[in-house]
């Protein structure tokens, strides 16, 4: 009746069977799994693919569209043709070339402004959340004030003031007006982490505050930080485009917002050169859309509860 316990685990290690990391990949808090997660989410894939295309455009525009984007080399106001896939502007510039080169500025603004404001958000938000009492009070107040102060008018004022400063100023403006929202979110997240025992444990271990923030708290917020970055990037793309569109950017830069400004000034839509306005508009829209999709999907990735239910297909035998 009883036989040798063939598969009984060694007594010294009772939990061994369950210890195999079988479900490791179901958790996404570890950055290494991010790529996999993105691959498995259709929306994320769509966003990532779009973004990849733009990144290629931004990195090697010369390969796709040789020639200077601003040069007035061709007959003006041409329709789409083999030589000019999107036609030429009223000034005789090749719209396709401008479109390809324009990706770089928009992408740089998106990424740099996104990164910097996320950094600022993280710094202020995490400090406010983790440090006690007065520090939190002051930092929170600053955050709230920046949230309340109307951003776009502020952007307009600063942009008008720092006219001609180019992308650097626009980025600075976007960061100054864009960090507060994220800081507030991050602070809330830190508050929820703050009383987690592992932070107490780190403190009891003897870690210094800065190290606790940097190496214990921040890595736990990667998903929020990424979401934040993506959100800040969308904000940067749209706001920068809006600024350039009303002529508050540097109108000599090669960016989609500037293209739109010129197209709008020459009434490209009405004047029979719709591609001049449509292309950069779509560029901004798709770049923004790529970030938005990634963000939307990222919510699902980082929050298992939001994962899509695929109604059909998974039904097994019964």
């Amino acid at each position, binding site marked *: 009746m009883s036989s040798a316990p063939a598969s009984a685990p060694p007594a010294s290690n009772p939990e061994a069977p369950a210890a195999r990391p079988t479900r490791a990949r179901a958790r996404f808090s570890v950055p290494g799994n991010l790529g996999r997660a993105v691959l498995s989410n259709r*929306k994320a894939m769509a966003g990532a693919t779009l973004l990849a295309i733009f990144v290629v455009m931004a990195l090697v525009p010369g390969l796709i569209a040789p020639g200077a984007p601003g040069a007035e080399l061709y007959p003006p106001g041409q329709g789409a043709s083999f030589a000019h896939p999107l036609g030429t502007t009223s000034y005789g510039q090749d719209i396709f070339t401008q479109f390809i080169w324009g990706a770089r500025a928009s992408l740089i603004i998106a990424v740099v402004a996104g990164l910097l404001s996320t950094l600022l958000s993280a710094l202020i938000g995490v400090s406010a959340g983790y440090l006690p009492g007065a520090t939190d009070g002051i930092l929170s*107040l600053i955050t*709230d*004030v920046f*949230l*309340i*102060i*109307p*951003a*776009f*008018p*502020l952007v*307009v*004022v*600063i942009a*008008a*003031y720092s006219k001609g400063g180019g992308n650097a100023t626009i980025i600075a403006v976007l960061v100054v007006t864009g960090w507060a929202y994220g800081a507030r979110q991050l602070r809330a997240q830190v508050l929820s982490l703050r009383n987690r025992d592992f932070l107490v444990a780190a403190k009891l271990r003897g870690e210094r505050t800065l190290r606790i923030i940097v190496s214990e708290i921040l890595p736990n917020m990667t998903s929020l930080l990424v979401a934040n970055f993506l959100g800040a990037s*969308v904000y940067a*793309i*749209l706001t920068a*485009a*809006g600024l350039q*569109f*009303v002529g508050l950017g540097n109108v000599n830069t090669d960016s989609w917002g500037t293209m*739109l400004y010129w197209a*709008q000034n020459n009434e490209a*839509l*009405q004047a029979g050169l*719709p591609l001049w*306005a*449509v292309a950069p*508009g779509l560029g*901004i*829209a798709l*770049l*923004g*859309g790529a*970030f*938005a*999709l990634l963000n*939307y999907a990222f*919510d699902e990735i980082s*929050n298992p*509860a*939001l994962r*899509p*239910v*695929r*109604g059909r297909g998974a039904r097994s035998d019964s």
Partner: protein
Amino acid sequence: MRYVLRRLGFFVATLWTAMTVNFFLPRLMPGNPAIAMMARFHGKLNGQALRAMEVAFGVNAQESLLAQYFAYLRNSAVGHFGTSLTFFPQPVSGVVLGALPWTLGLVGVTTVIAFFLGTLIGMVGAWERGGWFDSILPPVFIVLSAFPYFWIALVSILIFSISLGWLPLGFAYTNGARISLSWPFIGDVLVHAILPGVTIVITSIGGWILTMRNNMIMTLAEDYVRMARAKGLSPLRIMIDYAGRNAILPNLSGFGMSLGFVVSGAILVEYVFSYPGVGYMMLQAVLNEDYPLMQTLFLIITLAVLLAILAVDAITVLLDPRTAAAS
């Protein structure tokens, strides 16, 4: 009590900071209003007019910055906002009061509509998760929300006004129409509001959908929703009264903020649609270095945000008994 004090401190600090920023920022800009004004005339003005304007605007009356600052604080407190330079010699208060209703009417109403529609779509989307409704509307609107507003506005003007001729291409009402509370005029205003309004809704609804949908999905997993099902309540009641009402709470504070941002968000809308509201006025004030106008608009926007937050605080307390307890 402490809560009220904290709120009060927050309001005062915010207001003061905003006012200070708003005082110093324009003064850091180069040039002066008279020069800015000259620039606008594209050379049609005689060069001597510059002197005339400098005198009229009093820009050369030198007073120390600090004295100006305190005068400004004092005047703002008693509602003295000075004379607009862009709309010289109209008082700023009149200019702003004339423009504010249009902005509140257009952008304010559409923001509210976008919030409710977005909340509704997010709610139903989460409720019907995975269904066709949920697979189409939320992603589409979320991607649309990343589109540049002005671009959508321009394209829709091209299609609906210029090509099809269905809708007016700008303005708040037909030129020459007498402003009155008559039905024809109201109808006229509504027709003019369709295009700007719809484009605002289309581009701003995505954010609400996303947050509401996420909140709703979380809420739907709550035990009390399951409990409501167990009680045999009708699906509509569960969706709205049990899940929806709880899911909307986190969205409210965002809504308060955005209501205030109506005024700032109006800039591009009004620019594209020649809408005579405060957003366009803001842009003009900046371009013309119209400090008094700029400052008043800033103040109004800040006040609007604060008021909206206050209102939302009150609504939240009404909707969520726990907040009252927490304070």
